[in-house]
């Protein structure tokens, strides 16, 4: 298939998605639109984790920490000084926190950059560690971010967090950022850098022997991943309009890890599909937490049941279909075309 055709198809797909969103905006109710928004944000987060873990082989459990940084930076920038005056009741905010303000786009980028900076700072010492040690150390990083958020009331309003963050993050912003993330990561992986990253994942010692500066490429991948995690956190903050340190527990990282594993480590299209599927599933599972009317019998709702089913699903996937939905394969226009031409022959 020629390059021109692929670009054409990509444009058509984007227009179709845009039309769908445009229709959805007017016809869907608020709850469904909220789910669509969450899908976009979860895809951003899962793509960034897949870049770090699925394509570079760095087992990172620090996503919640990067998201928290992005969310706090963005929220501080988009809230008006008056709002912040009302909000910081524990202790007054620092002057520079109080007066900082930026438009939404700049705030989201700032959130991403702050997370990327944190990625460089923690990545520099930690990326020399082996896989499971890296996991536990990045998890430690995420916990430290949370503890700091709890203990700097003049910056983060402590345990109370922020309320009434302006809800700029609508469908267009979220899916726009989702597209940007996808584009950047696809381009990165198709470039020579992408090949190096995959070489490091498949055999670090061999990559090193080939003269690759392994550490530099690991840091690059980790930083880009952290940037988009920060962007995802920033969008989430504006979507939900409230954040507090409790929101950024390990559970958040766990949900994203689940999407990446279910979609296939090392498959971007798998991540997108799993991002849609699991976000919908998680919402749908709320049914089991509400009272169910079954043939006249009232079954009481069970809070927590959702996560029971969800974690069981992760165990089952890892036991019986370790490669996830797509493995390392990608869904591309070529593979779609092949299916059609096989039908004709």
């Amino acid at each position, binding site marked *: 298939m020629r390059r021109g055709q692929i670009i054409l198809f990509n444009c058509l797909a984007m227009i179709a998605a845009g039309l769908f969103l445009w229709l959805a905006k007017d016809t869907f109710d608020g709850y469904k639109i909220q789910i669509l928004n969450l899908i976009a944000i979860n895809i951003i987060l899962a793509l960034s984790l897949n870049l770090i873990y699925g394509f570079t082989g760095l087992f990172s459990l620090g996503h919640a920490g990067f998201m928290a940084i992005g969310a706090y930076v963005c929220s501080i920038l988009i809230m008006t000084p008056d709002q912040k005056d009302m909000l910081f009741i524990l202790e007054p905010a620092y002057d520079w926190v109080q007066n900082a303000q930026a438009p939404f786009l700049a705030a989201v980028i700032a959130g991403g950059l702050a997370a990327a900076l944190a990625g460089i700072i923690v990545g520099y010492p930690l990326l020399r560690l082996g896989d499971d040690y890296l996991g536990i150390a990045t998890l430690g990083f995420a916990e*430290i971010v949370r503890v700091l958020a709890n203990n700097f009331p003049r910056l983060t309003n402590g345990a109370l967090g922020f309320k009434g963050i302006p809800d700029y993050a609508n469908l267009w912003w979220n899916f726009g950022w989702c597209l940007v993330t996808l584009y950047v990561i696809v381009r990165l992986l198709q470039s020579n850098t992408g090949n190096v990253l995959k070489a490091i994942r498949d055999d670090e010692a061999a990559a090193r022997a080939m003269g690759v500066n392994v550490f530099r490429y690991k840091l690059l991948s980790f930083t880009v991943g952290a940037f988009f995690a920060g962007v995802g956190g920033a969008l989430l903050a504006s979507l939900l309009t409230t954040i507090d340190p409790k929101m950024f527990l390990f559970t958040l990282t766990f949900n994203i890890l689940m999407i990446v594993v279910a979609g296939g480590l090392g498959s971007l299209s798998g991540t997108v599909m799993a991002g849609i599927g699991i976000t919908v599933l998680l919402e749908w599972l709320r049914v089991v937490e509400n009272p169910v009317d079954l043939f006249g019998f009232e079954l009481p709702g069970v809070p927590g049941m959702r996560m029971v089913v969800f974690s069981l699903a992760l165990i089952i996937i890892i036991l019986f279909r370790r490669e996830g939905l797509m493995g390392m394969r990608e869904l591309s226009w070529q593979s779609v075309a092949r299916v059609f031409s096989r039908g004709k022959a």
Partner: protein
Amino acid sequence: MNSAMFIQHMLNSLTLGSLYALVAIGYTMVYGILRLINFAHSEMFMLGAYFVFWGITLGQLPWPVAMALAIAVTASLGVLVDQVAYRPLRDAPRISALISSIGVSFFLQNVAIVFFQAIPREVYRPQWLEDPIITHGVRILPLTLFVPFLSLLFMLVLLWIVYRTKAGLGMRAISKDIETSYLMGVPVNRIIALTFGIGTALAAASGIMWALRYPQLQPMMGTIPGFKAFIAAVFGGIGSIPGAVIGGLALGFIEIMTVAFFPDLAGYRDAFAFVLLIMVLMFKPTGLMGERLEDKV
């Protein structure tokens, strides 16, 4: 700070440290044998404490019986988790088993939320553990002596098993080289099951005593102590049982003493351990007593 207060802080750190040490031993044993960070370990800690609670309130059992029974039940559960969730993944990449253990951890935690409810519960404490002994102006809770004593007992039994029995010989052999042990006729799967059983029993014992010391039960109670105990194991050198004990005690002392001397830092208490972890991993990744694990090419 006067000397009486200092002695109390010392006893408190000894209590906390020995609780961390017990949990750390389980992490270190499993890691030594399977190179697996068993995230579900911290849930065993929580379940042990809950089983005692249910044994006393529902089963009307006397306290020591409930405690022994809870340890036994939790230990079997630990073996079951290994058989179901880790054993099929022995030949898979190491991270698969790690993800599976994260899944098990969340599963058990949420099962606990569903069946035990998220409301914190009060724990029964025998009266004789609570009446303080006052000598020379030092006020000592019998509990702060009881916990380190019982922990020490458990550790001695463990050391006897690992260094003086045939099963222990098998454990040490497997941790050196699992495939060769297999060829030498070590019943690898049985020994691994035993390791999970012993490690989980210690976690349960620690959870039960934790509930005596900080008398409140809730489904998330295992998470933070679990992480900290793991960090203690890394600090001491993962794979080494004496290392886990030393790491646990050291972490207990660091936490209690830092808060005692610098009360302003109390809010950061949960972050100490993680900062310690990152420092250890940066400067001495093998920990105090660990052996160097080479990357195999």
